């Protein structure tokens, strides 16, 4: 990440008694693709609206290129937003929709039309310029909204769940388009979404929010491998959380007593002492399944069900003494070779390096 373009400094937002965002701070780099992810009501859209100036923070400050945005009305900012509802003007043609921002900046009509048309052509919409926006398909309207926001050449583009109304196929194509556009233009994208697929496939960094607070900021890989806390782990859903009491703190690993016997967990920067209760998690794609244990940590489990995701399979196993199912992710071919039937008894095993304490892996 290069220098910070946008700084969010201890920003809070209250609506009456309801606090949407609580003392949140993070910064967004020049040319970065940042996704803000969380379930509905987590404050991600409020965050975006504060960036656009549509809401004023109750406390704290937002800075763009070092300048405080406090008190600046939305029309005094240069942070175009792509709306979830797209918010295209129904009474204007496609071309005039795209040119709206230029018109407000006093760009003369010939120049305005030339630049708008260039953007429409870039997004393969040139032939629709004189149509009404209502005559376009969902995907086409999406691109009109994108062109309208980008035609003014902003430094930062804000996107509020822009793909949520599209079907899966179209969404994947739009993700590729967004990512390549962002690379090509070199501008900063701030992308709000509830979809893990969208966030992880496009973003350089992901901010995970819940109840108005940031739970974790990091690259998709870092969040996937090392969730910072129980909330993130459950939200991403690719690990199983276990609990035990510390028996021995070694150089590389920590030995814990769990309901399923002794287990080794990577030490990281674990600071607990002997006898302390500690939560740890096991990455689902680092667990081996078989008749015999293949790694030092192992449990006997009963196979419950499975779910295909692409060419990977997620297995759900029932383990005595654990409330949640043990999740295991295997390549489809490996799963086929196992020939498992629901109810089958298997041994799940993993190395100490696949298990970590929350916040422990720096």
């Amino acid at each position: 990440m290069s220098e910070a373009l946008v700084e969010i400094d201890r920003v809070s937002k209250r609506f009456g008694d309801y606090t949407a965002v609580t003392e949140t701070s993070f910064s967004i780099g020049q040319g970065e693709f940042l996704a803000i992810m969380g379930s509905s009501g987590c404050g991600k859209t409020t965050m975006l609206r504060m960036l656009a100036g549509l809401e004023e923070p109750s406390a704290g400050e937002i800075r763009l290129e070092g300048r405080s945005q406090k008190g600046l009305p939305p029309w005094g900012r240069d942070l175009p937003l792509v709306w979830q509802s797209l918010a295209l003007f129904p009474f204007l043609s496609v071309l005039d929709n795209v040119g709206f921002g230029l018109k407000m900046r006093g760009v003369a009509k010939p120049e305005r039309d030339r630049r708008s048309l260039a953007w429409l052509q870039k997004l393969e919409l040139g032939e629709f310029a004189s149509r009404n926006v209502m005559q376009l398909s969902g995907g086409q309207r999406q691109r009109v909204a994108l062109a309208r926001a980008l035609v003014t050449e902003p430094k930062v583009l804000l996107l509020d769940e822009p793909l949520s109304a599209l079907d899966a196929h179209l969404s994947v194509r739009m993700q590729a388009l967004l990512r390549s556009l962002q690379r090509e233009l070199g501008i900063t994208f701030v992308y709000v979404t509830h979809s893990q697929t969208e966030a992880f496939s496009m973003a350089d960094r992901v901010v995970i929010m819940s109840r108005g607070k940031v739970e974790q900021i990091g690259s998709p890989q870092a969040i996937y491998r090392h969730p910072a806390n129980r909330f993130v782990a459950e939200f991403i859903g690719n690990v199983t959380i276990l609990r035990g009491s510390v028996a021995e703190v070694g150089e590389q690993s920590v030995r814990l007593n769990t309901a399923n016997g002794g287990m080794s967990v990577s030490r990281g920067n674990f600071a607990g002492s002997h006898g302390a209760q500690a939560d740890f998690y096991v990455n689902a794609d680092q667990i081996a399944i078989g008749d015999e244990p293949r790694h030092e940590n192992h449990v006997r489990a009963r196979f419950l069900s499975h779910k295909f995701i692409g060419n990977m399979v997620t297995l759900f196993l029932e383990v005595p003494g654990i409330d949640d199912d043990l999740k295991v992710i295997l390549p489809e071919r490996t799963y086929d070779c196992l020939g498992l039937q629901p109810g089958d008894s298997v041994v799940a095993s993993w190395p100490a390096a696949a298990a970590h304490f929350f916040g422990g892996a720096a």
Partner: protein
Amino acid sequence: MSSNTSRRRWPLLLPPLLWQLTFFLLPLLFLFVISFWSVVNFRLEPDMTLKNWDFMLSRSSFWSAYSHTWALALGAAVVTTCCSFPAACSLAFTVSERTRKLALMFLVVPFFTSYLVRVYSWQAFLSDNGIVNALLGLFGLDGLPMLNSDFGSLVGYVTLALPLVTLVQTMGFAQIDRNLIEAAHNLRAGPVRTLFEVIIPLAKPSLVVGALFAFILAFGDFVAPTYLGGGAPPTLSNLIIDTTKSGQQWPRAAVVAIMMILTLVLTSLAAVRLAYGRRK
């Protein structure tokens, strides 16, 4: 299935259909028919003559009344639309839902009193020795002639149409997608530009329909031009009264009435076209 249900439902449509047929379409047809009748010795006689049409339409007094009525109704539409606009805007955008409902309820209150009574009470304000001129006198200003003028008529028309037009406009503004307003702000349109570039185009149907209501109400109104406008120069409604009073000329009055209806039908069609007209 849909044709089946519609067949089962059509008896429900019978009462309004009968009502319209008996009390609107048939009288209208009768109006059209008697415009071809004659008056002999102050009595209507069935006939098939074009002389009533010829008499009225060749007369400059008819056409001056026609243009005067048109101008007044257009003025009423413009003035009422402009007066309603700020009120409707703030009711739709700035006040709470509760206040808006309350305000809309109050907009109905003027209809509790007869329009005639409200127009009469304006006389107390507008007459040469009325309240407005008395107030002007307090500031050492000369009194203005307001009663028995086009201004007086306009005051009456606005009294008649303002609550309805404000209601129509408020409903129209309230339906505007707030996202579009925010999108305009986001694309650097300040409040004034957003008003002209986004809110007015979006509210156009309600603005036009509101203005059309004001136009229709003013065009056919007899009370305001008579009691506040003084009846001179006459409007078409004054002309109808004069024609029927002078020599029982019902057929000629029918000609005027048909011309009025025709005008309103054409104006309404044009207005609807303007409001909902083809978008590119």
